[in-house]
Every structure is written in structure tokens, then in C-alpha cells.
């Protein structure tokens, strides 16, 4: 039911209802910005297992899901997260230790796959990746794909241009659509029915949402529908796509939420230090994730003072002069 009903619920409810063990999931944001971290930590807290995760460059969010033990299969373009983790550490370890199955694509591939899913077509064409191992080497075997109806039968397909040399292309890569069971995004503003307004870059959030069966929106502010409807052209996701709306101030923390707060370089640096050591990382999870009841609890551990330091400047939308060394 995605009609114009009130969809506001708690994060606990939303995750419990729509994120099931083994489900196919994608999260919004990109590296240090607008990861739906509150939702990610709630997934870890609820000890969800065997998630099949679709990521382009989803930074801290995906790394914490992996570190939290929730992910068994990963399709990804980029496992890096800015200065604090040029390669995401739990991602790196999980692959090196053979703990998860993984499949590599490029960022454009992944964006196009969500786009195809949102459009309701089986594939979309691109010229990216011809001649590379991204197309040659399959992380998920043909056999594994044949057995699982939730996977396309091929990683990608190269065909001759059926329109001769139209647009100058001799060959094209077709890459298969993604339709996640659930997509979670964090936005600045949403109304109670799920219509969203994203400020700053939207990354691939719009198609990630529209391609999914269920969408959980966490937001900094729940605003009146009437307010959003004054400028409908700035609302990228209409309510018809959304299943749950959750009010979570600082819901992207420790990643940034444009016009609200910056990423927290200190938290991210510390997290990287913890992540490098299994024991420290376990303690970190026990304290910061399992040890708190909800995102508010994590923010309390961080402290108001730190949140003040990363608060966004009204003119630029980020914390000007923030110490990011």
C-alpha cells in the first residue's frame, strides 16, 4: 500500500517490517554523504543476516553493514570512503577472508542498473567496460545465477549494435536491471506520505528508490505536504514509491547531510582505526551500535559538542573551516 496514507513509523518498525533476512537491499548516499546511517545501525542492531546488497559507492553505510555481519552477497562499484578509508576496511577484510560473495561493476553500471529497474526494463545499454575484466570476470557464476531467480542469468551481455553504426557505436554493453526488495534513503525533508525533497546532490537515490519494491525514507524533518507542494518540481520522489517515513534527525551521521551537518572526520577516523582490528571493531559495535537503544543513543555518546562542530554553515551547507586533517 503506497497510497496517500500516513506512513510515519519508528525506525525499529520500519526495519523490522521491510528488511528481512536474505532480502535484496540498497541504501542511498555516496561515500561521506547522506548514507542512511541510523537505518544501517538499526539493521545491525536487529542482527539481520544474509542481506544481498547493491551498492555503487555507498561508503560507511555498506561497510558497517558488512562489519556488522549482515551481508552475505555484495554487488558493488566502489568500496572506498574518502580520506578516512581509501578502501573500506571491513569490506576489504571480508573479501580477502572469503566471507562474502561479491560482484564488481562500475559506478555508471550500477546507476544504470537502478535506472533500468526504475524504468521497468530488463537492461540498459552503455559503452562502459568494453574490453575490461569487469565484463570478463564474473563474481557470481553462471550456475549460481541459473539457480537463483532473484539474479539475472548474466552479469552483462555485449552485442553488436543492432542499428549498424548509429551514434558511432559498433558494440554495446547491456547490463541487467536491479529491483531491490527494499531501498533505504536519508533525505533532508519528507512529508508524512513519503514525498521527498533532497537538497544538494541526489547521487543515485531517486532510481534506487523507484526501482525498489519497498522504500524506507529517513529524514531530518517531516514537513507539511502543503509546504513541499508549493514547489513540486523540487520533490524528486513522490509518495507513491514510499512505504515508510521515519523522522531521524542526524540520521545520516557520521556521514554528511547537506545544509544540515558535515561528515564527522573524527568519528570516521576513529572508526577506521577500530575497523582495522577485529577485537577493537567488535568492542566498537558493542558500544556504539548494540550498546545503545537507537540512533539518539549513538548521538549521545558522540556528544552535543561534536555535533555542534559539524553543524552546517547556512551559506555553504557544510561546516566551514572544519578540521578535517
Amino acid at each position, binding site marked *: 500500500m503506497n497510497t496517500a496514507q500516513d506512513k510515519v513509523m519508528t525506525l525499529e518498525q520500519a526495519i523490522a517490517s521491510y528488511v528481512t533476512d536474505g532480502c535484496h537491499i540498497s541504501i542511498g*548516499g*555516496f*561515500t*561521506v*554523504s*547522506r548514507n542512511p546511517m541510523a537505518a544501517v545501525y538499526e539493521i545491525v542492531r536487529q542482527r539481520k543476516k544474509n542481506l544481498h546488497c547493491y551498492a*555503487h559507492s555507498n*561508503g560507511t553505510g555498506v561497510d558497517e553493514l558488512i562489519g556488522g555481519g549482515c551481508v552475505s552477497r555484495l554487488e558493488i562499484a*566502489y*568500496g*572506498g570512503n574518502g*580520506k578516512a578509508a581509501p*578502501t573500506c576496511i571491513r*569490506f*576489504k577484510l571480508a*573479501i*580477502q577472508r*572469503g566471507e562474502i560473495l561479491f560482484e*564488481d*561493476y*562500475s*559506478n*555508471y*553500471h550500477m*546507476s*544504470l542498473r537502478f*535506472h533500468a529497474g526504475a524504468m521497468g526494463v530488463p537492461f540498459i545499454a*552503455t*559503452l*562502459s*567496460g*568494453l*574490453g*575490461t*575484466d*569487469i565484463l*570478463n*570476470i564474473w*563474481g557470481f557464476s553462471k550456475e549460481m545465477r541459473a539457480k537463483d531467480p532473484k539474479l539475472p542469468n548474466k552479469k552483462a551481455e555485449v552485442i553488436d549494435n543492432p542499428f549498424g553504426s548509429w*551514434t*558511432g*557505436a*559498433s*558494440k554495446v554493453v547491456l547490463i541487467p536491471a536491479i529491483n531491490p526488495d527494499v531501498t533505504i534513503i536519508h533525505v533532508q525533508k519528507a512529508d508524512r506520505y513519503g514525498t521527498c525533497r533532497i537538497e*544538494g*546532490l*541526489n*547521487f*543515485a*537515490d*531517486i*532510481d534506487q528508490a523507484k526501482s525498489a519494491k519497498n522504500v524506507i525514507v529517513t529524514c531530518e524533518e517531516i514537513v507539511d505536504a502543503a509546504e513541499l507542494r508549493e514547489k513540486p518540481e523540487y520533490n524528486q520522489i513522490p509518495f507513491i514509491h514510499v512505504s515508510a517515513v521515519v523522522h531521524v534527525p542526524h540520521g545520516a551521521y557520521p556521514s554528511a547531510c*547537506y545544509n544540515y551537518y*558535515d*561528515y564527522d572526520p573524527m568519528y570516521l577516523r576513529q572508526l577506521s582505526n577500530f575497523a582495522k582490528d577485529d577485537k577493537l571493531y567488535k568492542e566498537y559495535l558493542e558500544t556504539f551500535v548494540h550498546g545503545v537503544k537507537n540512533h539518539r543513543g549513538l548521538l549521545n555518546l558522540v556528544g552535543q559538542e561534536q555535533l555542534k562542530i559539524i553543524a*552546517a554553515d547556512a551559506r*555553504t*551547507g*557544510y561546516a566551514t573551516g572544519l578540521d*578535517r586533517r
Partner: protein
Amino acid sequence: MDYTLKETMTIMAAREIRNGDIVFCGTGISMVAAMAAKQISAPDSIIFFETGSIDSCLEEIPLAVADPRVMFGAASNSGLLEAFATMQNPNTGDRVIGILGAAQIDKYGNLNSTCIGNYFQPKTRLSGSGGSCDVASFVSRCLIFMQHEKRKFPIKLDYLTSPGYLVGPGARERAGLKPGGPTAVITNLGVMRFDNDTKEMYLAGYYPGVTPQNILDNMEFSVDISRAIETEPPTERELKILRKRVDPQKLVL
């Protein structure tokens, strides 16, 4: 005036950027190089990020392409779909110059940023393509930042993430890729380019104090050094702009 190798590399790259270029930027040094070019010699170059930001007003150095700093004052903020389309697009793509980095590069300028060792049980797993494969597939000019070390210039890549000239002349076209390929490889020792006919890497320039042999010693494969000349060192003006206006906090340099 003293300067670091990182500063040299940045300025070497910045010099490749022409006025009017649309510069695809990654994180770190590539972003600083693009910012430097805009301040030094190509004021009408346009910095653009795969996250969808075009011509941002970079008052502070972004530390990621999704850093909120890239969203401020841009001509347009959209998303990945629009950003990559700008490069694949026949009209805008030809004006884009990409700046990439990698863990390995081969003599045809193909890049590996995915893994060291076997793909399935890697010795070291790296971040993966991100937009690197896309940029390398689409754009007509590409700069590549590398550290000169033997293992980073191998005879065979452990994984081909991003296409250079593939297996040589005509290979991009045969694979169906757009014409293009890497323009220059900028390392901590010198600048390499690619021969027009063979598409093989050759040494074009070495920094003051470096010899061509130093460079060969730091590569698995060998390259033609007959065309190499000593590069023009960073000028005082270039360094001043770089230090005072581009990265005063020394976040990258």
C-alpha cells in the same frame, strides 16, 4: 623555492588542462590538480564530479567526490546518471579530460584498481572501479597519477578495471570503445605519454634530479626513453597559488 614531489605531480597535471576543458575529478591529488589549473592557467576549465556536480565553487578542498563542499555554488547538482552521461554524450564527452589513479598500470595504459592477486581470493582487495572504468571508457583525454614502483608498472595487470589502449593500436575500436585513451601518466619521477602509432607508453619527461634509468628501475616493463627531456620545474607562481589558494590547510599536499 623548494617543493615536494606531490607538488610537482600536481603542477605537471595542471599544465595538461586547457581552458574550456571539462575536468573529471576524483579525490585527492586529482582534485587539487584540477583546482590548481583553474587558478593558474585555465580559468575557464570546468571541474566536474561523477556525483553530479558541475562547476562547483570550491572554497575548501573536498575530500571525496560526494563531499558537501562540491555541492556549494555549482552550476548544477544532479546525480551519477547525469554525470556519466555527460562523458558518454557525443557533444560534451569530447570536451572532458579525466584524471584517474590506480594501483597498477600496464604499458598500454590499462588500469587496475580492483585487486592485487586473484580476484576471488585477493592478496589485497582495493576499492574497485568507482567511476574509473566509465571515465576511461568514454573520454578522449585522460591523465593518470601513479607512484613509480616496480609492482605498480607490471607486465600484466592482476585485473583490468579501466581500459587504456587495451592490447594496442586499434584495440579500443575493435572492442567497441570510443576513441581516446590515456594522454599522460604523471608519477613521482616523471611524465610518460603514449606513442601515436604503437600506443605504448614512453618516457616524455623526467623531473630535475631524476634520470631516465631511475625511472626504468622502477618499472617491470621497459619503455622508450629516447624522447625524454627534463621537465620544467614548478614555477614560483605555480607553487604560490597551489599553497596559498588551493590547499592552504595541506589536506592533500
